[in-house]
């Protein structure tokens, strides 16, 4: 079965970010497909590559990055939510002359059209907020 997963919550402030991650990993373990991950609102912080945690803690952002790369997942960060919140890729950093990239390259900044496309092509859409 083909899932798309929409995440509205940031790591460290809401458990929902971790729930979304554990759910996504379980979907893959059960042999289902992920059509797309879509990070919206505060959810864009899941793609921050600048997060640092203590040695005995999980780095959820790093775990997402690893999972996305290991499984070649299609992962989209909503571009307007992202730039508002300081999550920028190389292209946005250059366009706005920020001199710093804060988003993992494993996710792509794109518009809400990618979410609508996901609802059209997935068997199940599930939201975590």
């Amino acid at each position: 079965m083909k899932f798309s997963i929409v995440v509205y919550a940031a790591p460290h402030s809401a458990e929902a970010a971790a729930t979304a991650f554990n759910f996504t990993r379980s979907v893959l373990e059960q042999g289902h497909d992920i059509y797309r991950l879509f990070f919206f609102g505060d959810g864009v912080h899941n793609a921050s590559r600048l997060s640092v945690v203590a040695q005995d803690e999980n780095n959820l952002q790093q775990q997402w990055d690893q999972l996305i790369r290991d499984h070649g997942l299609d992962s989209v960060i909503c571009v307007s939510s992202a730039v508002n919140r300081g999550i920028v890729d190389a292209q946005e950093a250059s366009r706005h002359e920020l001199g710093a990239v804060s988003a993992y390259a494993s996710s792509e900044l794109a518009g809400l059209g990618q979410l609508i496309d996901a609802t059209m092509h997935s068997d199940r859409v599930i939201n975590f907020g």
Partner: protein
Amino acid sequence: MASKNTNKAITFISRRAPYGDSNAQLCLEMALACAVFGQTVSYVFLDDGVYQLLKHQDARGIDSKTLGKALETLDLYGIENVCVDADSLSERGIRGGDLVLEVEPVSRTHIAELIDQADTVFNL
């Protein structure tokens, strides 16, 4: 389930007051995008979401965009199936004439139908 690549029925339930957090704004943006991409959209105001419909909002003093004004774009984007939970209105002492949109007060049974008929529901 509808077959792939076809038009989908998507129901939005907007359940938060405007301004205090960003959920009401995010919900509206998603619905407008759905309409642009030709999906069949229903939009429901429930619980504190009915506060979004109050007339005379003016958010300049809190450095924000006025959401009550932005809701008018629902109609501009061709989203006609807009309704509001009658119980949520009456619990908050809001009358139909106090609303910024011409929007139909409906029962919870009607909202249950809109969820039932939808392929996907966004509820925030």
